[in-house]
């Protein structure tokens, strides 16, 4: 087994996905098969190989420190599920 059901459950919490029992079962099987498949990468010797962070070599993309027009609060909040006092509302967070 490349991955256990318990590990799948842990990952689902990290990813904030509520999974049903049935989903947990099928996902465990599917992930197991896929992880088994990707094992083959281990057979490749990559000692000393630099990982590709970007497919095309680029560096230093900058913008100047100048204000650019943005949204009004109405525009920013237009797609919000719940709005109050010019802000996005969610249930109370206790710190």
């Amino acid at each position, binding site marked *: 087994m490349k991955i256990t059901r318990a590990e799948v459950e842990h990952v689902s919490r990290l990813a904030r996905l509520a999974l049903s029992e049935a989903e947990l079962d099928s996902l465990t099987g599917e992930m197991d098969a896929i992880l088994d498949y990707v094992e083959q990468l281990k057979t490749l010797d990559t000692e000393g190989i630099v990982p590709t962070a970007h497919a095309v070599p680029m560096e230093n993309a900058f913008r*100047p420190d100048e204000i650019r027009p943005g949204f009004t609060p109405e525009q920013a909040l237009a797609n919000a599920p719940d709005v109050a006092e010019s802000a996005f*509302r969610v249930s109370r967070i206790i710190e």
Partner: protein
Amino acid sequence: MMQGYETVIGLEVHAQMTTKTKIFCGCSTEFGQTPNSQTCPVCLGLPGALPVLNQRVVEFAIKTGLATNCQIAPRSLFARKNYFYPDLPKGYQISQFELPVCEHGWLDIDLEDGKTKRIGITRAHMEEDAGKLMHGDKPETAGSSLVDLNRACTPLLEIVSEPDMRSPEEAIAYLKKLHQIVVYLGVCDGNLEEGSFRCDANVSVRPYGQAEFGTRAELKNINSFRFIKQAIEYEVERQIDLIEGGGKVLQETRLFDSNTGMTRSMRGKEEAHDYRYFPDPDLVPLVIGPEWVEQVRGTLPELPDAKRTRFVEELGLSVYDAEVLAADRALADYFDACATLAKDAKTCANWIMGDVLRKLKETGESIAEAPVSPQLLTGLLARIADHTISGKIAKSVFEKMWQSGQSADQIIAADGLKQVTDTGAIEVLVDEVIAANPDQVSEYLGGKDKLIGFFVGKVMQASQGKANPGMVNQLLKKKLTGK
């Protein structure tokens, strides 16, 4: 330290950079505006938005790194720190992980016994700030939290120290030093109440002599220097009590409560985070060549330490005076300007620390707003030096200069304040005073030397303060004793 335990403290400071715009988008960073009025697709985390790095933030990071003796990384990367929270629009924070922009720096702090201690700086890196969570305070919003994303994507420089501090005093000294530097550089406004300079403390204890560090707790929500001492002391005692009682210190985040002076655990409110750092594919590597570093180095102002040293060694100030004047960059510049114009640095220092600072405190103005400029102040000092007016008269002239913005010369002329140094004129007054006070003359001649002050006072009064006191003194003695 108490009961054979050593305190070990490391500090993480998040300093908001005073660039006009956010780190990855062109929205304004201005504080205190209507919620969600400074946003765009990028800082709102809308689908499809992409970050672009503000070059000035990099410049500020290099500047701060140089001022704290760090090595500037020739190549650094941005990484995503993944976690879920309502004030984090993308569900990840863009930060730097494996290759930060600055590393291996240090700051020297002054200890109470006069020695200095070097505190290591592990790294400094750039990252974006999260938005703000507010709690609904109206009846309709009482059960809610409200998210304002104006602050989201504001540039932060996170500066991490080595765990080199061994007492709350050392911690405060380090923080004050770092605070002074970033404000001096103009990269951060250092406003703790507004949250532009935030400190988290990592605190642990270990028995003296033990090489390994104890488990540390991270203290958050300490928003003034005085709370640092409170928080650290409480935490140290808590940890020692725990260990002595057979328990174990947990590696956790604890919130400092300034009302109770205690720290309390945040565990149970959030689970352990697996941030799953990886290089951000939307941003490209940052390459900083030696030319850029040198160009930024050329823009560094003289820092507080160097200023203090110069004030003492070249301008002859006392250590204390140097410290006061070097503490604030604008004040130091004011003093430097005066010292250049007046040549007598010590007198300038006395007047600035005494009269100028007093007036600023009274009026609430900043040194930049002072109506008496270095030119005007040194103009006044010159009139004392050339005996046009006495030091005492000068005080009232200064007062008038502050109110009116006029020069010393203008006020002296208008009020007819020129000091009288004409010996003939003073002699007349001296004779009058001696004649009018025969009893005191007898007492003085009988040995009460202190009475000279009485006579000087009388002459000064008669001259409306304009007589040169030194001359008065001299002439009085001559007339009274014949010497």
